[in-house]
């Protein structure tokens, strides 16, 4: 990449290739490039600058915007709801999050509200046993909202610090499945009117532009307030979150970097933006 005085169409093409290859998607890539061209045209960019550094700092500011900490309940259990498409990493992230909170000295309860998929309840119970966290579960095929209700009642009675509710994977194109989400919200609010304190959309770090559609649709259905990006130990850069952050204000709280309990990190916009170009 060259300094500004030598920037030409091929410089912008190279930047475009880097951003698209990192899964930022066409729209936000064009926006970033247009912004840079504009800044250059009005003399805002010094001729000694590197276009990569400029682009990185633009991305950092998109990612750092509204990056508030996790919303914690100060008068009772903090309720976290995990949602997202099939296979994104919700159950695993639930386990990792519970582990981290426990390490922080908090009391945690888990709710197995994926009552649909084969062995989903067993999978979460397995995690619960591994990290020594109790799991509220019912029978396979029972009503997910009913389990959520029981879990909230239990969280209230035990006054745990955190209740994390794991839900079934679903495609946002399935209206019937998406309608289950507001139902779960209503049921949670019977015991905790202010909950969920976070509704976390779990996104697979290797997903392309579809993650933006997931953010939109899940956002509409159950008012997503937070993002977790998984599988960033893979080759994917997870650039689609730049597109998501550009369009939505909710923070990215966690990144998943593997399959073990300790493979969860808080989101760092600086590291994330740098990694896009590495």
């Amino acid at each position, binding site marked *: 990449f060259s300094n500004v005085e030598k920037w030409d169409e091929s410089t912008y093409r190279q930047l475009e*290739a880097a951003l*698209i*290859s*990192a*899964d930022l*998607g*066409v*729209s936000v890539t064009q926006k970033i490039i247009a912004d840079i061209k504009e800044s250059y045209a009005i003399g805002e960019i010094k001729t000694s600058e590197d276009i990569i550094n400029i682009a990185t700092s633009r991305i950092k500011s998109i990612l750092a915007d509204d990056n508030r900490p996790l919303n914690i309940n100060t008068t009772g259990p903090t309720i976290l709801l995990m949602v997202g*498409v*099939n*296979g*994104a*990493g919700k159950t695993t992230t639930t386990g990792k999050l519970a582990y981290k909170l426990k390490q922080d000295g908090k009391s945690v309860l888990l709710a197995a509200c994926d009552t*649909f*998929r*084969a*062995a989903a309840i*067993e*999978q979460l*119970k*397995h*995690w619960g046993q*591994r990290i020594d966290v109790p799991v509220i579960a019912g029978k396979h095929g029972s009503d997910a909202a009913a389990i959520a209700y029981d879990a909230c009642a239990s969280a209230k009675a035990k006054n745990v610090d955190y209740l994390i509710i794991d839900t079934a994977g679903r*495609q*946002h*194109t*399935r209206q019937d499945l998406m309608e289950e989400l507001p139902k779960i919200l209503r049921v949670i609010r019977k015991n905790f009117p202010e909950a969920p304190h976070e509704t976390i959309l779990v996104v*697979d770090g*290797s*997903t*392309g*532009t*579809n*993650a933006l*559609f997931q953010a939109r649709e899940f956002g509409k259905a159950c008012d997503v307030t937070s993002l977790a990006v998984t*599988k960033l*130990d*893979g*080759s*994917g850069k997870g650039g*689609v979150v730049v597109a998501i952050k550009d369009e939505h204000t909710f923070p990215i709280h966690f990144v998943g970097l593997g*399959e073990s309990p300790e493979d969860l990190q808080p989101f760092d916009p600086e590291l994330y933006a740098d990694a896009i170009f590495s």
Partner: protein
Amino acid sequence: NLSDALSNTFKTITGKSVLTENNIKEAMEQVRLALLSADVHYDTVNDFVGEVSRQCLGEKVLKSVKPSEQVVKVVHEELTRLMGTEEAEVNTSGDPAIIMMVGLHGAGKTTTCAKLANYYTGQKKKVLLAACDVYRPAAIDQLEALGQSIKVPVFSDRSTPDVVQIAQNALNTAKSEGKDLVILDMAGRLQIDEDMVQELIRVKERFNPGEILLTADSALGQEAVSVATHFDKALNITGIVLTKLDGDARGGAALSMRKVTGKPIKFITSGEKVSDLEKFRPEGMASRILG
């Protein structure tokens, strides 16, 4: 969408002209953006656009057809051609035949194993599922539960982490019970995880499966090329299964993976029910990618 974008590009062209380099260039930029928005890999798009550009150049603008429609037709035909022209064969020969399912975490391998087991049971084959994922919590439980729901037996062994041994014992069981087909459900893994890829190579070299199917999420982004290339180089995959087509991902990863490996897409899945499995149709995928 692409048709509208192209209509705009060509609004000054009439039935007497020939598609020239300049108006092709502008049209191809629209095609490029459409394919990138569909998650087709950056390099794959450039190759594709180069090829389509050559095909469009000098084409007479037909009096009865809008130039934009002509370009869409060339693009659609080239996409369909790249997706594969005839229905891909599945190798079910062998005593027993072996299908090995590989791919990234959460792609849909375990679920697809059950769907394939159900599909071939419907074709009067005796199928045995083999639970070779010793890593993921309750993976064996998952395959066993699926097997029960479709009344297909599942071979599992919770006493050993040795995947080759589990596969061997599954095959021995299959032979002694006269099974026609064994489907090996492998754990999800990163294509860049050399140790885990090595595990797949060991299984392949020992048992020589007639089918090694890379299972990929249709929402996979730009990593599709890296994923497909790594798995293909390591295993010489025989085909690809594309999953979660009931979502609204355009599925450009399918084009990238097909182009970079040359391997056929054999099946698609579009739901969580056991019946949500179909043989791949190239024409349908081309339309979906174009949006």
